[in-house]
């Protein structure tokens, strides 16, 4: 869809009338207009949730891209396990389910009026506006890095052409090359992602370029599931992956794209492939609208995900400050359901029952070896806290069969969560 036509609006409103006519006995159709900016895990999960629970509300999903490429499972593309199309989804079923998908970039939003200006200048007006824009890369966090440098030193932290680029570089690298992965300071999207990436790259290198090495230059001194990752590296990839913590000069300060050199405070590395992941903040449209209040991420009500500043405005997923919930696809999907429940309760004047929030995250060391972390959350009046801190991960020294089962579960999770959104 190139432009938003009158026909789209007519089609959407006809759907509303038809749904109302087909469900006699229901209350009068709600005319509430819900706008969602961003067609990723937060936005699409919310749109589908709302439609499943209410045939009457008007739902408009605004998304620039016509294809959604998931960050989960994109590390497998980089390792050559499957093509990018296996982690790519179209919005056909989203549209077919009675959601108006506006395939245009949202340029600007007004958090008070709940309006969104599209590329081209048209403006859409809503009663409820949900912002789920994902992350924006902070290019200036690394000297010498930027959109142009990323063509030589891909971040591949937004899945799509960057993923393909990094795959091609890894594939064409000579045996014996050095892959550098630069990990930004927290908070960033998918905290275990860089380490899973290193693991799956090592899986590919071990089979095809066994003299090659990976060095992870980290801004932090510890990482999530660290013991499990390190155990798997010991078992599977001895001598192939080196991790340099921030306190040992791991933080990347500067890069030189022309020479593929990466500089930390004290050392420099000449890479054959440089995967440079910069610092992150909430998606640009949220920052531009001041929803982050200068902090980089947006404060929300911990049970409804409504903005703390603007009534009727909600923020989901990576862009939100969601207490101890990590920035993950699973979190965004769970938050979307909680938020959807809150919006529908508000529209219908119904009581609101806060949703249970979980985050479950699998990481692969190789295709038949995965492990997980399980987070349950308690929603308090001002934050979201872990309900237990102990025994959240797969135990260390687990049998191979256990890791195989986790790998199968991870694939099943991916099938189910993407079906929730796109089937």
């Amino acid at each position, binding site marked *: 869809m190139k432009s938003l036509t009158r026909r789209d609006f007519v089609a959407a409103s006809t759907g509303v009338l038809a749904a109302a006519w087909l469900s006699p006995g229901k209350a009068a159709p709600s005319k509430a207009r819900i706008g969602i900016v961003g067609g990723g895990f937060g936005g699409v999960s919310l749109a589908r*949730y709302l439609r*499943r629970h209410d045939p009457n509300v008007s739902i408009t999903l605004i998304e620039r891209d016509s294809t959604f490429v998931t960050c989960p499972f994109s590390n497998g593309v980089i390792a050559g396990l499957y093509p990018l199309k296996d982690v790519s989804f179209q919005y056909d079923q989203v549209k077919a389910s009675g959601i108006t998908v506006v395939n245009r970039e949202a340029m600007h939003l007004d958090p008070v009026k709940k309006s969104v200006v599209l590329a081209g200048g048209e403006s859409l007006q809503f009663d409820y506006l949900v912002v789920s824009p994902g992350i924006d890369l902070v290019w200036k966090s690394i000297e010498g890095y930027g959109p142009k440098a990323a063509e030589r030193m891909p971040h591949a932290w937004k899945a799509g052409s960057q993923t393909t680029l990094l795959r091609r570089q890894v594939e064409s690298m000579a045996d014996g090359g050095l892959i550098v992965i630069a990990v930004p300071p927290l908070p960033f999207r998918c905290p275990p992602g860089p380490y899973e990436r290193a693991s799956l790259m090592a899986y590919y290198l071990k089979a095809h370029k066994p003299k090659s090495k990976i060095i992870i230059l980290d801004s932090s001194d510890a990482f999530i599931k660290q013991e499990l990752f390190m155990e798997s590296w010991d078992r599977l990839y001895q001598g192939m992956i080196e991790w340099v913590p921030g306190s040992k000069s791991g933080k990347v300060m500067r890069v030189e794209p022309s020479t593929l050199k990466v500089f930390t405070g004290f050392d420099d590395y000449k890479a054959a492939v440089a995967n440079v992941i910069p610092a992150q903040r909430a998606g640009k449209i949220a920052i531009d609208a001041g929803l982050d209040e200068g902090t980089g991420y947006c404060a929300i009500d911990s049970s409804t995900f409504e903005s703390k500043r603007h009534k009727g405005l909600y923020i989901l997923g990576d862009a939100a400050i969601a207490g101890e919930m990590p920035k993950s696809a699973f979190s965004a999907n*769970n938050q979307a359901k909680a938020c959807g429940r809150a919006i529908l309760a508000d529209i219908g004047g119904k*009581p609101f*029952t806060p949703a249970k*929030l979980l985050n479950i995250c699998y990481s692969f060391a190789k295709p038949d070896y995965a492990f997980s972390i399980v987070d*349950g959350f*308690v929603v308090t009046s001002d934050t979201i806290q872990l309900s237990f801190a102990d025994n959240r991960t797969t135990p260390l020294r687990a049998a191979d069969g256990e890791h195989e089962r986790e790998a199968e*579960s991870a694939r*099943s999770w991916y099938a189910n969560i993407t079906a929730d959104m796109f089937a």
Partner: protein
Amino acid sequence: MTLHVRQCARRLKFAVVALIVIAAPRLSTAEELKGEALADACTSCHGIGGRSHGAIPSINGLSKDAFVQDLKAYRAQTKTATIMNRIARVYSDADINALADYFTSGGKP
């Protein structure tokens, strides 16, 4: 903390029932609302309506007894699963009952 939350939930439930009776008899009951609110997180792995693709088991269409028994056994660590032993710790007996009602009644979307 958990106890406090549960007490609040119980109080809220009474308030909710009262509201529903006064406002609109056709609305969901508080029990149903609670089951659904809890179940939303389950479906992120087990699929919409509890119908799963692949290795993660479907959790719709079980008998209520089996559902309750299994979840309590995971929580008590007397039955092992890939990750459910870790997850089941977040649910109280009342939560497990509400979840069982939700998923054994056909698993609404």
